[in-house]
């Protein structure tokens, strides 16, 4: 492979790709060289073939997992921001409720998931709830922090101009909180996917609404290792895609003042 692309901007993007190609190449070479059976470690080619052969099944499962993760992320954003807003309204609320938010965060989701799955009849809603529990913490904590880290002199300026509580919130606290909020959002994006997958593992539900976790579970039982790898690859790609999308959103929202480059008009 030629490396004539130059080492500036293009290189930054190409470097991780080159690493990926090297690893995949070495993997392929190793499975061929040592004649590793596909049920132990499938070669990348075998995984690729499975991705194509099982595309209908896997795509449907990917859709299920993604829709659960995205629904959970949306709920975590709305609920998390609402909780953070309540927290900054009164120290009392924050003091009273923070321990419970932390409690939710430190309790492993695998331990809570069975309860949620038993209590909530609809499996899909139960899975979404589990993912929300996992994803909501960084949004609550980062947004609360952001809403609180307001330049005290700006706060003085608002007070001198007799700003109402609402004006301080809308025109000062919320804009100040955006960078922290987007930081939390990026972490929550990955967590929502993890939550969705872990909860599905615990639920072990199949049939119509089977997600990628279920496919991995079944493939493991059936020793269909290529499909297991294929499902794994899809989960990873979904996570990366989610991260890239949220990073893009964050850049769109903040670039004009967090990095000055886009501001010229």
């Amino acid at each position, binding site marked *: 492979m030629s490396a004539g692309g130059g080492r500036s901007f293009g290189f930054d993007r190409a470097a991780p790709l080159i690493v990926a190609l090297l690893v995949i190449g070495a993997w392929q070479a190793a499975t061929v060289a040592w004649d590793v059976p596909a049920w132990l470690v499938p070669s990348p080619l075998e995984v690729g073939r499975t991705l194509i052969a099982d595309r209908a099944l896997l795509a449907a499962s990917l859709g299920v997992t993604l829709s659960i993760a995205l629904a959970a992320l949306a709920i975590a954003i709305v609920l998390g921001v609402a909780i953070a807003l309540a927290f900054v309204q009164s120290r009392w609320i924050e003091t009273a409720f923070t321990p419970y938010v932390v409690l939710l965060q430190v309790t492993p989701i695998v331990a809570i998931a069975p309860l949620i799955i038993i209590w909530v009849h609809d499996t899909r809603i139960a899975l979404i709830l589990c993912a929300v529990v996992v994803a909501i913490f960084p949004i609550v904590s980062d947004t609360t922090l952001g809403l609180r880290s307001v*330049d005290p*002199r*700006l706060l*003085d*300026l*608002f*007070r*001198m*101009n*007799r*700003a109402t509580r609402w*004006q301080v919130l809308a*025109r*000062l606290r919320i*804009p100040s909180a*955006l960078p922290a909020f987007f930081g939390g959002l990026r972490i929550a994006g990955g967590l929502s996917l993890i939550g969705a997958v872990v909860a599905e593992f615990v639920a072990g539900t199949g049939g119509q609404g089977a997600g990628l976790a279920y496919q991995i579970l079944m493939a493991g039982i059936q020793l269909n290792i290529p499909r297991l790898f294929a499902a794994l690859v899809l989960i990873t790609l979904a996570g990366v895609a989610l991260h890239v999308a949220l990073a893009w959103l964050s850049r769109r929202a903040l670039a*004009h*003042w*967090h990095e*000055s480059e886009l*501001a*010229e*008009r």
Partner: protein
Amino acid sequence: MPPRGEAAEGRIGGTTPAVAVAQATKTFDNGTRALEAIDLDIRPGEFVTVLGPSGCGKSTLLHMIAGLLAPTSGTIRWWGGPWSATGTDGRRLAMVFQAPTLMPWARLDANVRLPLELAGAGHAKTEASVREALALVGLTEFARHYPRQLSGGMQMRASIARALVTRPDLLLMDEPFGALDEFTRQHLDIELASLWLKRKLTIVFVTHSIQEAVFLSTRVVVMGPRPGRLIDDVAIDEPHPRGDAFRVSTRFAGYAQRLSAAVARACGGHPGDEACAGAPASGP
């Protein structure tokens, strides 16, 4: 210590002071005594500079005059009334902070418009005022820029434009040019003095620069540390506008020397005292 209050009242009489600080003290919650009983009248049209070493409570005093901090005991009156009666025509306060303190997410015009919007003025009504305020500080062509795109001096001017947009009667400035280089600082001093003349403002200006105090003020109040108290009150009887000729005059040097001695006295013969570390050395 000279009996300050009497001196001030003896000199100017008649009109209601823009600010009347009477026996105001400040003790913070942690027990720190920031200010000893302060008496200070600011007359309309005065340019009063509060001068003193770091930690002498001058910023605390300014925050109290701004209504952002309540005195522990004693009173402060604005045009003879309480703080709640300010904010109307003829009784408007505005403050310029140590740093530009602009909202980084908002363009310059939006930053300058903020005080008007907080007062409930519609966008259309504020347009002319915002343009005028920006023109006053020479930032007309930067209205659509973000604060980050401007130099420190330009950001400070934007901050002044924001303070002037409500047409304040009393402008409070807390070491506004302290973080700027000497050249920019002198330039902004000249602009500020001309704004004060043009707008017939009353200004309370906090600084630890003796040169800046002499150049700008009609009156300099010297404060000393621990606890913060008034040490001296010096009238700078020089006509405005003042130019570079004044800066190099012997009269300028005389005022500077007098203030320098007062600051040294404020430090109470403890030159190594940490509170006075920021104090300029007394004249040779």
